[in-house]
């Protein structure tokens, strides 16, 4: 194996080793508490309060969108560590002495996406256990759900690492959430699926196709419920990979500027 890749694996091993200490805490927060509250608010209360005669599976359809919170929160933690490092100790500069900058970015994205993916996997199982028959899984393709979760984690990790490379000010993380994450989340299928957004405001529906979060919720809803109302999984995966490539490339360019790489 090439020595650069061996160093990369060592970095990855180090990150996993550090994370291991907090794994139980994250697992409780993301795998149990997060889906429990989401299932109650978005799967049980919200549909009953908003709609007088609740259509079949509406609670489940609404609850699926709340995975975006779990994905964003989980991938934000490694990104935040990266932000603090870039602004403080700059351990990352030592890493760039050993391997090329693009490999450092790859390592961060791979680590962040793996952690996010592992933590997100039990989400729908817990939601199903809580919502019971209201979460109809008779048409669910679990391999496709896992596939969607993997590519979603990858895209969202690349997005947050790019954000980490772009943030230079104290209030940068607050701005990231207020100006980007919250609007992208709200219009990314967190509340309602795309066909309802398109039906209500068609031009916004078309504009929303530029929202990377949309392909996460649409692909997951299709894989979980199999309804043709949602986008098919293949175009969602293609879009997620496209966004991942764009975010990764932009992160590498910006990272090189930040560390003044020659």
């Amino acid at each position, binding site marked *: 194996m090439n020595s650069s890749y061996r160093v990369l694996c060592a970095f990855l091993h180090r990150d996993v080793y550090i994370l291991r200490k907090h794994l139980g805490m994250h697992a409780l927060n993301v795998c149990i*508490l997060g889906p429990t*509250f989401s299932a109650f608010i978005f799967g049980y*209360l919200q549909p009953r309060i*908003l*709609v007088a005669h609740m259509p079949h599976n509406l609670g489940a359809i609404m609850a699926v969108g709340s995975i975006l919170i779990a994905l964003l929160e989980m991938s934000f933690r490694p990104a935040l560590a990266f932000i603090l490092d870039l602004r403080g100790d700059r351990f990352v500069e030592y890493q760039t002495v050993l391997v090329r900058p693009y490999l450092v970015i790859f390592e961060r994205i791979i680590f962040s996406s793996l952690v996010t993916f592992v933590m997100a996997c039990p989400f729908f199982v817990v939601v199903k256990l809580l919502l019971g028959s209201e979460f109809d899984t008779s048409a669910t393709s679990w391999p496709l759900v896992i596939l969607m979760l993997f590519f979603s984690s990858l895209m969202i990790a690349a997005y947050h690492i790019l954000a980490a490379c772009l943030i230079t000010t104290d209030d940068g993380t607050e701005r990231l*959430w207020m100006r980007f994450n919250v609007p992208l989340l*709200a219009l990314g299928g967190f509340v*309602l699926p795309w066909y309802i957004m398109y039906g*209500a405001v068609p031009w916004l529906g078309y504009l929303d196709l530029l929202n990377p979060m949309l392909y996460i919720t649409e692909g997951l809803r299709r894989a979980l419920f199999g309804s043709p109302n949602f986008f098919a999984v293949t175009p969602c995966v293609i879009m997620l990979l496209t966004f991942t490539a764009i975010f990764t490339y932009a992160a590498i360019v910006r990272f090189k500027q930040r560390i003044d790489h020659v």
Partner: protein
Amino acid sequence: MHTNHARTFCALVRRDLYVLRGAFVKSFLDGILILLTQVVITRYFFPYLGMPQELIAPLYIGTVVMMLIHQNFSLSIENLLDLQSERIIEYRLILPITPPWLMASYITRWILRMMVTTSPLIILGALLLGPAFPLTNIQPGLFVVIYLLSALLFATYFLASSFAYSYDWFINNFWPRRLDPILTFSAFLFPWYRITDVCWWAGVISLANPVTYVAEGCRATLIANTNYLNPLLCIAILSGACIVGAYWLLSSMYKRLDPV
């Protein structure tokens, strides 16, 4: 002696106002994107799904409460970062000001920042929601009292939390283990009477939660509807919660900073 404290307090607030003036456009921009998103969701998406028109305004007010919580969370992180690294607070402690006065200056700054971000959300939101949010029914006096008490409540509790917990614990656990349960069992997203209709026990639990009175108080004073909790009851509960919060803030601050 007290004049000195008041003078230092005023100087600190004046400085914060100066900083805030420079950051006004940034704070406004932070709020405006969320405002537009929420207006679209509550005015167009939910009614398309079959939601009654009367729920648009109360749901939108829930968003404003959410903004207050989100902003206070960010401000707590700022304070935690200061406690962890720069410790500007220690410089402030050596000023001719007592710790309670210093905390009052922090709370004033947080309230001012909340007002800058959420005021446009309320005013512009009501205008954009049009007939769904009639401005003719507002009770301005009561609303201002409830809004200030709500801002005071959030500022006190979040500031106290930033002293009570370590940075690592706060970043990893505060939202899922503290805020999520508080928000789940409160009437901030949906009106209390609708929660009680759907799930009575959740309605009962949410009565023990001050966030319920923040949202319901705002709804009762901004929208003319007898379904919401009485604003005077909300004022009484919020005042009591603020006193408890102030006590917690001072005790956690003394424990963390140990000022002489």
